[in-house]
């Protein structure tokens, strides 16, 4: 029972990692570059919701949309500054740019929004469903549902729409995409915006779930998203989502077995171990 309880805790936390990882996977898949600004995108999404609630009242769904848009707009800036110019250049250049951008956004947020923790309104009145002694909050269910819905929607979007097809084409082969008449520049920009928007949504759920918004909240969140994305096999959306959940579960079971201070150790040891055994990630194909 106890084990099951911890497992459910892990799944709940993992679903947030999963959502963050999906956004990262879209960015990496389409742009093809590693970003360290993603955590700050998450933070920006969270702050946008915080101010949305103040300005327009507590409507979570509208806030999610607002957060998506804000994060996507920040994504445009990040794209112009960090990616567009460096698509053909050695990868480390844009990587350093994203590190600079992350520093910039974090400090800008500190100056603009203040460095103290801010709270989010409570949604669903803390209601929950009981299964024996285990309680799963409505919010947790909503988060899991949002993750599943977004994964499905995203998959459908990528599979069924023309834009989705463009994104997939660009993520597979930029040259061939240009040859069939896809505007690679615009498409990578759009892909990046979608990824960032998902990051923003994840940021809002993160903020609401833990009831806190901070300029420094992005750091570890971005790292976990990155890790889940790599474990999932670089840009695979379903893989990233599953890896996010796996990381969450491993962390929580690790805490259950040892000490709670070691949470991140579990995450990173898992990462290193898996990459050692399967260099292409959990769901990646060999030779990619």
């Amino acid at each position, binding site marked *: 029972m106890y084990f099951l309880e911890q497992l459910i805790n892990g799944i709940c936390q993992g679903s947030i990692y999963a959502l963050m990882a999906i956004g990262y996977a879209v960015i990496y898949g389409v742009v093809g570059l590693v970003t360290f600004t993603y955590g700050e995108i998450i933070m920006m999404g969270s702050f946008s919701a915080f101010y949305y609630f103040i300005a327009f009242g507590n409507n979570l769904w509208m806030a999610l949309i607002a957060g998506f848009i804000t994060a996507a707009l920040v994504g445009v800036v990040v794209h112009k500054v960090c990616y567009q110019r460096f698509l053909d250049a050695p990868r480390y250049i844009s990587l*350093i740019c994203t590190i600079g951008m992350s520093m910039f956004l974090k400090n800008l947020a500190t100056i603009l929004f203040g460095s103290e923790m801010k709270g989010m309104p409570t949604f669903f009145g803390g209601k929950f469903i009981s299964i024996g002694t285990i309680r799963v909050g409505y919010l947790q269910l909503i988060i899991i549902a949002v993750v599943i819905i977004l994964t499905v929607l995203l998959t459908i979007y990528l599979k069924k729409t023309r834009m989705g097809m463009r994104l997939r084409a660009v993520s597979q082969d930029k040259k061939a995409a240009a040859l069939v008449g896809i505007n690679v520049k615009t498409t990578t920009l759009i892909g990046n915006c979608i990824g960032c928007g998902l990051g923003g949504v994840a940021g809002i759920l993160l903020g609401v779930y833990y009831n806190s918004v901070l300029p420094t909240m992005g750091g570890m969140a971005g790292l976990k998203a990155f890790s889940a994305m790599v474990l999932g096999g670089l840009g695979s959306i379903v893989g990233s989502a599953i890896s996010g959940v796996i990381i969450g579960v491993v962390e929580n079971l690790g805490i259950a077995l040892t000490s709670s201070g070691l949470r991140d150790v579990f995450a990173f040891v898992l990462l290193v171990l898996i990459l*050692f055994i399967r260099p292409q990630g959990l769901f990646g194909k060999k030779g990619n």
Partner: protein
Amino acid sequence: MIDRIKKLYTDNKTIFLIAGLAAMIALPFLIVKGSVMSIIVKILFYVILASSLNIINGYSGQFNIGHAGFVLIGAYTLAILANFGWPIWVLYIVAGIVTAIIGFLVALPTLRLRGIYLALVTLGFSEIMRLVALNWTALTGGPMGIKGIPSPWFFGLRSTAPHNYYYIVLFFVVICLFTSYRVINSKVGRAWMSIREDDHAAMSLGVDIRKYKSINFMFGAFWAGVGGALMAPFYKFIDSSMFTLDEGFNILSMVIIGGQGTLVGPVVGSVVVNLTTEIFRFADEARLLVYAVLIISMMWLRPQGLAGTSKSVIANRSIRKSKQVLLSKLSGKKEVK
């Protein structure tokens, strides 16, 4: 302009080196203020750290973004063993060796990995090290850190005053750059560079990639460890918060701003980065904003770094492109990579 300076330098290398060294030795006599000296000592620390990272990233083309982990090991090794009464001078080297051994252990799994995967493993390693240092209280003092790290004695002087400690660090900086120079201009260094340029070609010439990558990681880790060990007695207190990922990113920025794959690059990088953060102290809250803008504008204006070969990236790009063309031409048959 930078290129002209570089040419002037290459033409009169020996004179410049001797003059530079003389100036460095004379420096503490010219600067009265301990605070300025302290900044200079810090720059010298980073020269070692950035150079050691440059050995890994710049010369063998691996991508290590968790360098802080190695620095941590060096610093903690010295701090822990110093409390057992080991002489500090010996510990500088011991710390380097311990870090090199850990570096080897990190290199083992990473030999199979490239690019982003390798980067992620080094990142994970760095965080694991920090968290272990934070949680293994019995050994590392955990969050209490280790305080009262003794300072080495040096011609009868208490050496942690910046004016004195400067010479110890300078000594190691010179040794670090000198050994790097010698190794790079040997079979080993050429093997590293061949791996960086084209590992398949290197393999086909009989270069044992695994062996040389491990040596490379060990050599870089050694100097990172020495750098970390040098810092511990100077600050007298260490805890895990001094070796975060951001610290690793900071070192990485120095290497890239200075110019990867050149010996001078990391030196220039650490000077420029440290001076900028110092100079913009008056900007208060916006200080790191300025630093962030500096990093980004450097990548826009001079992505090869201040000391990097001019046009190398552009040349690199077109050469890469021509290769791509050829590759695509041959892609029907050739799938080596």
